[in-house]
């Protein structure tokens, strides 16, 4: 796997996650959150998120196994992962819901928050591993911000 492969995968999967989430929200808004189509949408989003996490771990593992001892090494593919704050993602989903021609329910919002929380915790676990392996990639200013999340 090359660096450009990982960049392509990160970009494509991140976009796919956003589009699938928006699509699922739109389906749920029109057909109901419990409709089988909404379930299929949630399943698709989960599978995209799972693959995205695995690709991130793969990038990390590949870099770990090939990284030379000297600290001045090329920037690993993991650095290509764009920072995506969970709050922005959640807001995007809520905005998508608000555009749907139905009332927004507390249950829908609670479920979205729960999904964002689970995704955030899994991403945080991966980010912590990256921080331990590549501390030089995380300037002090960034680490303070990360701690504030």
């Amino acid at each position, binding site marked *: 796997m090359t660096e450009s492969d990982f960049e392509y995968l990160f970009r494509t999967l991140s976009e796919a996650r956003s589009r699938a989430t928006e699509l699922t929200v*739109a389906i749920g808004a029109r057909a109901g959150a419990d*409709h089988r189509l909404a379930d299929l949408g949630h399943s698709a989003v989960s599978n995209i998120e799972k693959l995205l996490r695995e690709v991130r771990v793969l990038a990390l593992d590949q870099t770990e196994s090939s990284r030379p001892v000297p600290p001045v090494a090329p920037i690993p593919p993991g650095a290509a992962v764009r920072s995506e704050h969970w709050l922005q993602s959640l807001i995007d989903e809520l905005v998508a819901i608000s555009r749907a*021609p139905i009332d927004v329910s507390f249950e829908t919002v609670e479920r979205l928050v729960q999904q964002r929380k689970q995704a955030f915790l899994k991403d945080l676990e991966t980010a912590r591993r990256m921080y331990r392996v590549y501390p030089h990639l995380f300037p002090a200013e960034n680490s303070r911000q990360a701690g504030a999340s």
Partner: protein
Amino acid sequence: MHVNQSNLNELTRKAADLMSDTEDVARLLKARLGAEHEVVRSANDMHASLESLAHQLRCLSASDDQHDEMGVSEDT
């Protein structure tokens, strides 16, 4: 709630586009890692779920009684 054919067609198109735009992901991973790799299986799962979603939407869109299927009324 209100579902019309136009909305359904739009959702169907978006699902089909999403499936099409992610087709190369599984292909790339398979070429680089081999068909038996765990990540390739996850990519296949992702593609299958998107394909299933697009297929179900397509079926619903093509159906004459899609409103009954989605359990919504046409009173809007």
